[in-house]
């Protein structure tokens, strides 16, 4: 079942057209990877899906993005509800300069107001367990999240997002600052999370896309060149440009 569908989606930064009529359909409970060389618009596409592009000045969109069948573009969209449903993990881990506990508690605090202490404790514990950080961090929940390693920070950011109970996790090159072992562990985590969430990941690494994704989209110069099952894209690409990219002719 398609969770998010884009229809004839076009986007401009000022006069520069960054997305050219993108038609894609992201399936629920699957991992969809978006690959392509730098500047091809893959991050832009991801950031349209929860309207993070609104923070950039001079952005203009056309077309439709349907999340559960509702168009989220246009002035009428409720951005708070949208972003609660479609959350994002960033390239550089960005925990808040608060304690580990408060980072996880953040979502609950902003969405439900006053929360009882023991309820919050449970939410934090569940959050940290879901990203396998609980055993490492349970004794130092009060220390600053800034003291963690990069991998721990990124896990914390994922836990912080999951605590909001989104449906969709958008991941913008979540492993690009991590070493290979940490990357492997985060990928494992994504595989776990796939059961409950729709995951869309932008990655510059074709190997990563091939390892973890069910569907893959290949983008070039703002155009979604090819979109389909990952194994088809990597074994029998239909478009010449896709073939050139995955065989390493450019990128």
């Amino acid at each position, binding site marked *: 079942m398609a969770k998010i569908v884009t229809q004839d989606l076009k986007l401009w930064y000022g006069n520069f057209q960054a997305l050219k009529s993108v038609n894609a359909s992201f399936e629920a409970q699957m991992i969809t990877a978006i690959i392509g060389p730098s500047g091809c618009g893959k991050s832009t596409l991801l950031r349209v899906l*929860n309207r*993070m592009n609104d*923070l950039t000045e001079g952005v203009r969109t056309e077309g439709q993005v349907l999340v559960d069948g509702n168009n989220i573009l246009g002035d009428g969209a409720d951005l*708070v*509800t*949208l*972003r*609660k449903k479609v*959350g*994002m993990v*960033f390239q*550089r881990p*960005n*925990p*808040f*300069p*608060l304690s580990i506990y408060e980072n996880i508690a*953040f*979502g609950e*605090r*902003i*969405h439900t107001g006053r929360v009882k202490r023991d309820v919050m404790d449970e939410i934090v514990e569940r959050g940290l367990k879901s990203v396998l950080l609980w055993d490492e961090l349970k004794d130092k929940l009060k220390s600053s999240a800034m003291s963690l390693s990069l991998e721990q920070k990124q896990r914390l*950011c994922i836990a*912080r*997002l999951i605590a*909001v109970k989104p449906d969709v996790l958008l991941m913008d090159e979540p492993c690009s600052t991590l070493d290979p072992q940490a990357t492997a562990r985060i990928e494992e985590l994504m595989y776990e999370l796939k059961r409950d969430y729709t995951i869309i990941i932008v990655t510059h690494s074709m190997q990563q896309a091939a390892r973890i994704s069910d569907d893959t989209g290949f983008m070039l110069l703002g155009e979604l060149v090819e979109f389909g099952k990952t194994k088809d894209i990597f074994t029998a690409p239909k478009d010449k440009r896709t073939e050139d990219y995955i065989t390493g002719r450019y990128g």
Partner: protein
Amino acid sequence: MRKIKELIIEKLILLCGLAAIFFVVLIFLFLLKEGLAVFKMVSPSDFMFGKSWYPISEPPKLGILPLIMGSLVVTFGAAVISIPIGVGCAVYIAEIAPGKIKEVLKAGIELLAAIPSVVLGFIGMVTLVPLVKNVWHLPTGLTALSGSIMLAFMAMPTIVSIAEDALYSVPKNYKEGAFALGATHWQTIWRVLLPAASSGILAAVMLGIGRVIGETMAVMMITGNAAVIPQSILVPVRTLTATVAAEMGEAVVGSEHYFALFAIGIVLFIISFIINVTADLFLHRKQ
């Protein structure tokens, strides 16, 4: 030849740097030399905690507690007024205001900083003082409150510009992170940006307060200059700075009064020093 030129310039610049320190030390030593002499005549605790300041009675009473209290009351009042407004203004400029309004506001704040304190003083005298008098039905409008309000105007530019810098230097990805969790703009400001900028904002507040404590002219004109321990914010008070400014001209050189005024200078110097060091600590804790 070029090398010699370099060398001379280098040494000249070094001299400029050293001169700054040299003058500070010189001023401090002079203050100490003149000020400490008062303690031959009155004990430090009688000086600091004495309740009456009658420097020209016989024998003179040199207790500066009323003056310290006067300074504290005025400063506290100014802080209560200027901190929320100043920080609010900084948040508005850094986060909310659209481009044009932002420029206008920033220029306005700079202009506020450029008003000479004597001008603020006489504007306060003809507008604020009668207002305070009428609103609270007081015998005189020359009160600590009037001083606090006027000084709040002087502290605000400092607070706004430094707090605004602190907010700008919060990494953009904190904001994105909060938005991506569905936080509203206000929740993001209150729960993420302000805590992240807190050390810079505290420094801004300390520097603003430092400016208020050291201010002389405006307070001398509108606080009434009565050297009594204030029981409320609606009575005339006299601050440390105003005392020195008002009495230095008439104090006989070498008299107890003269030395006592220098000792007040030492007290002020120490207060400012503590405030500046605290602000510095907050600023550097950030890095």
